[in-house]
Each structure stands twice: as structure tokens, then as C-alpha cells.
């Protein structure tokens, strides 16, 4: 990815493992183990005789194996993630193989202890020591390698998206801000003489705004704060555009405690002003409408635009929209969206995302 080469701060790739200590991961392991057990039982083609016993013994053994491997990865995860991928993978693989060996050995010994000579139900324990252990090591090696490879590939994919989003937000800051910054400075330069109090407020607002835009791209903030940032932006633009800029806020029904990635509403307002209101001699009204239903928050920003202009295709606008889309996708994969449409001389941008009160889980990892 090109984003990687431009950014000196990007950490070297590490082996990213899911948090195996979490209940969700353990549930996933149990489910996977059961499916593998069913797979094995089916593959043995002994549906008529002993299928259930076969499945039960296989499940029992694989659960032991799966949970002990999970426990080992849970303990060693932090340590493994600090080293380069190749070494971490090798060590993880060795640990898992050791686990397999240990569990197989224990199971075999147990079988020997419980069933010496006796037949019946205990025949589910393996009889041939070497074959049993070697077979388990073989299967374990293949499954572990596949799993590690899967974790690496999926983490790498996620990392690429994250880095692209970071690169975009920096590019966005570098792109749209200067116009706003210098125009605001010009307004303030005038106000310092004509209206010092408003000049002071404008400087304070500008400081707040830049502080918000310099914060980490991953930080989640309450919806209330995000609206506050957008309103700060609105106040500054208002000084410059006067009555040409009207903004109506209809967001009272939204849960203000909802956690959202920072700067998802403010750029929409900024775009609405830059590409819409500013380009209209008579100005116009930006309306921001929020609706909350079925645990989903919808925010629609609507603004007039000059006719004949391919608003959504403008480079700055498209970049801002893509950037918001990527950060929504990072916060709520597959459950959030940003849509835009143009109807005649009006442009609509709509955010839809689920209501969460705490930051999404993978942001803390």
C-alpha cells in the first residue's frame, strides 16, 4: 500500500492475535472445535455404528486441545505480539504443537490407566500410542498453521484499512483546512479593530476546532462533543458569511451520550459551506436532521448547491466523504454507512451508524 511508504510512523507489522482471554473468543473456539469434531466424525463414515460415541469422544478430546491451546495463547499473546512476525509465528506454532503433544500424551495415559484390558465404552481411548500422537501432531500442525496465517492476513487487511484512513485524515486536514484557516484569520484581523470581543471569541473557537482536528483519528467522543465542534465551526463561518449562512439543527431526539469517531459531522458542515453556501451569491440554509430508531442513529446534512456543478465529484468533497466512510467502517464494520445524493440543486449526505455508549471493542485492542 502506498500509504505505508509515506508514513514514517507506521510500526513494523506484528502477528496480530485476537484476544483469546475474552469470552467471545472462547465461545468461537468451542464452536469451531465442535464443527471440526463433526467433520471428523462424518469423515470416518461410520454413521451406522457408533457415530454419536465417535462424535462425543472426538469432541471431548478436541475441546481439551482447543481450550488448552486457547489458554496458552491467552497467556503468551502480549509477549508474542512484541516480536517480528516470522519469529512470533514460529514460537506460537511450537507452543501449540507442544500443547497438542501434551494433551495427546495425557489422554493416552488416562486411557491406559482407566481401561487396561477392559473393553466397552472405554474403547474410545486410543490403543496405538505412537500413531495417535503423531497423527494429532500432524493435524495440529496443519490447523495451527492455517489459523496463524488467517490471523495474519485478516489483521494485515484491517491494518491497511486503518492506515489508509489515517493517511486520508491527514491529507484531508492538509487540504481543506488552509482555506478555512486563512479566511478565518482575515476575518479575525478585521474584527480585532472593529469588534475585539468577537475577535477574541473567534480565536477561542478556532483554537478549539484545531485542537479537535489534531486529536488522534481513533479517538471516539460523545455525539454531544461532535455537535459542539460542528457548532464552533459554524460560529466562525457565520462571522465571515453573515446572513448568507443559515444553519438549522434538528438533533434533539438523538442520544447525546452515543460514542462516535471524532470529526464525522463537522466535515459535512464544512463541505456544505465550502461547496454550497459560499458558492451561492444569496447563500442558503444547511439543515442537519437527526433521527434515532431501532438503536440506529441517522444524521442527514442537506444543503443547496449551485446548479450544473457535479458536487459529489468535486475532489475535496469526495475525499471528505470517503474519509468519513472509512472511519465509520473501522468503528462499526459493516454496520455503518455514509450515503450522498443530489436532487436538483440540493445535496444530501446521510450518516447511519449504531448507537454505542462505549467505544467499539477493537478500538481498545
Amino acid at each position, binding site marked *: 500500500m502506498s500509504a505505508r511508504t509515506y508514513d514514517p510512523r507506521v510500526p513494523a507489522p506484528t502477528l496480530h492475535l485476537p484476544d483469546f482471554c475474552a469470552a467471545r473468543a472462547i465461545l468461537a473456539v468451542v464452536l469451531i472445535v465442535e464443527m471440526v469434531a463433526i467433520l471428523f466424525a462424518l469423515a470416518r463414515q461410520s454413521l451406522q455404528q457408533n457415530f454419536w460415541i465417535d462424535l462425543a469422544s472426538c469432541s471431548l478430546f478436541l475441546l481439551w486441545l482447543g481450550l488448552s491451546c486457547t489458554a496458552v495463547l491467552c497467556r503468551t499473546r502480549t509477549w508474542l505480539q512484541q516480536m517480528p512476525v516470522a519469529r512470533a509465528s514460529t514460537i506460537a506454532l511450537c507452543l501449540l504443537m507442544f500443547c497438542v503433544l501434551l494433551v495427546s500424551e495425557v489422554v493416552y495415559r488416562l486411557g491406559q490407566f482407566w481401561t487396561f484390558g477392559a473393553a466397552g465404552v472405554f474403547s474410545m481411548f486410543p490403543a496405538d500410542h505412537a500413531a495417535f500422537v503423531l497423527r494429532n501432531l500432524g493435524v495440529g500442525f496443519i490447523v495451527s498453521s492455517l489459523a496463524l496465517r488467517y490471523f495474519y492476513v485478516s489483521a494485515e487487511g484491517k491494518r491497511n484499512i486503518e492506515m489508509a484512513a489515517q493517511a486520508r485524515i491527514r491529507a484531508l486536514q492538509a487540504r481543506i483546512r*488552509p*482555506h478555512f*484557516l*486563512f*479566511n478565518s*484569520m*482575515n*476575518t*479575525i*484581523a*478585521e*474584527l480585532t*479593530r*472593529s469588534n475585539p470581543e468577537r475577535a477574541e471569541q473567534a480565536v477561542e473557537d478556532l483554537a478549539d476546532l484545531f485542537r479537535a482536528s489534531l486529536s488522534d483519528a481513533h479517538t471516539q467522543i460523545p455525539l454531544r462533543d461532535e455537535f459542539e465542534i460542528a457548532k464552533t465551526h459554524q460560529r466562525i463561518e457565520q*462571522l*465571515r*458569511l*453573515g446572513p448568507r449562512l443559515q444553519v438549522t439543527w434538528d438533533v434533539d431526539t438523538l442520544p447525546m451520550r452515543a460514542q462516535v469517531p471524532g470529526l464525522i459531522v463537522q466535515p459535512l458542515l464544512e463541505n456544505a459551506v465550502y461547496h454550497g453556501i*459560499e*458558492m*451561492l*451569491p444569496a447563500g442558503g440554509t444547511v439543515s442537519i436532521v437527526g433521527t434515532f430508531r431501532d438503536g440506529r442513529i441517522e444524521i442527514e446534512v442537506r444543503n443547496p448547491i*449551485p446548479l*450544473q*456543478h457535479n458536487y459529489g465529484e468535486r475532489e475535496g468533497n469526495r475525499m471528505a466523504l470517503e474519509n468519513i466512510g472509512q472511519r465509520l467502517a473501522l468503528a462499526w464494520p459493516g454496520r455503518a454507512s455514509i450515503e450522498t445524493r443530489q436532487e436538483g440543486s440540493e445535496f444530501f449526505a446521510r450518516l447511519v451508524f449504531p448507537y454505542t455508549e462505549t467505544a467499539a471493542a477493537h478500538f481498545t485492542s
Partner: protein
Amino acid sequence: MLQTPVDMRLLLVDDELPARDRMRRLLAEIEDCEIVAEAGTGELAIAQCAELRPDIVLLDVRMPGLSGIEVARHIDSLEDPPAVIFTTAYDQYAVEAFETEAVGYLLKPVRKEKLAHALRHASRISPTRLAKLAESARIDHRRDQICARLGEQLKLIPVADIYYFLSDQKYITVRHRNGENLIDESLKSLAEEFAGDFVRIHRNALVAEKQISAVERCDDGHYVVRIRECGVVLEVSRRHAAELLRRIRGEA
């Protein structure tokens, strides 16, 4: 440098009131200059330029409707056009173009000394440099209006109202909803600028695609185009027939 005994007469153009307030205040502190008018839109600026004949126009680049560079191109069609100084808060492409073409510009917030210096050195921008500016700074990808000179006045013609452009030896005739006018531009650059909506049907004719009501084939094999709203029939050259038919069919 010779000091002129009369004041420089300035036209101040910016869509933002605080920006004009500040410029007015700065100019009040500079000697030998007088603001004859202020304009908040490009259209008004063009009208005031034609009427009041300022010496220098201080022209904001980014404005609703007509951009500053378009305004400069329009007022340049006046006889004895004024000098132009562009002002901008931030516009990377425009500033690069101003630098390349050595055109006077000021960055907002403007310093008083720089403003005074720019006023002393303000000069008219040649049409060729303006054309280059418009090309490299292209803030809006294309004009929404074109400008025709009517004696001492300037007239803006919305591109949406234009039926066709016809060129003869020297001038181009624009036929539009409210009549026809002469303009001083080249058909080639018009064809490039409005490539999406206008189609070349002849070496000397550029027609609005949506205004073509019919393409008819004559007995001798060549084609003619009928213009919807005025009924005029224009000849299609052999060289442009294939392209025209392709575009008309592609639309259907």
C-alpha cells in the same frame, strides 16, 4: 516612479463583508487612493467596471457565480481595461498560476505595506496571460456564462441559453435565446472548454447538443442540423459528420 497627481480610483470586489471591511480600512490609511465602488459579486463588479471605469480592481479569486479570474477576463474586453490585483486567502492552483504569469496578487490577511506596494505596481494583465491563468488556475472547471461587449457595456450570456457559435474571419457570433452577439474568443478554445455539452459540426460551427432537434440528410449526401428553438439549419461538414452522428445516437 512618477506619482500621479490624481488619486487612484479603486473598485473593491469580495463576496465577504468582513474581508471588504478590512480592505477598506487598510486603503483608508494609504494615500492617493479612493474607493469608487464595492461589489459583492462578479456580475456587479463587471457592471461597475464598465460604468465607473476604475483604474485598479482589487478582485477576490473565490466568489460565488463568477470567479475572480473569470471577472478579470470579462472586464478585459473593455476598451482601456483597468489594472487587476487578485486577492485570495488560500488557493494553491491560482497562486501558482499568478506566480508563473507574474500577475499581481495579495494573500489575505493582507499587510498594509504589501497592499501599498501592489497598488503602486499594478498593471493591466494581457489577454494571453489571462487566458493562461484561467487555464492553469481553473477554479471552476468551466464558465457558466460568457461575456460579450456591447459598445461601452459588457453583457453576460448564460452558457445554458446558447444555441451555437459561428465563426467568420475575425469574430465569433453567439446565437442564444435572447438574440445574438459578437465575442472575441477562439472557437477551438470554446470547443475544448464546453466539450461535454457542445459539439463541433463544422470548422466554423459549434452547436449545443441539447439544441439539436434533428440531423437531416440532404440529396447530395451531406448532413444538416436543425436547431430546436430558433429553427435555423446549419451545415455539417463531412469531417465532423461521423462524430456528430455517434454522439447523437449515443444519447438516444
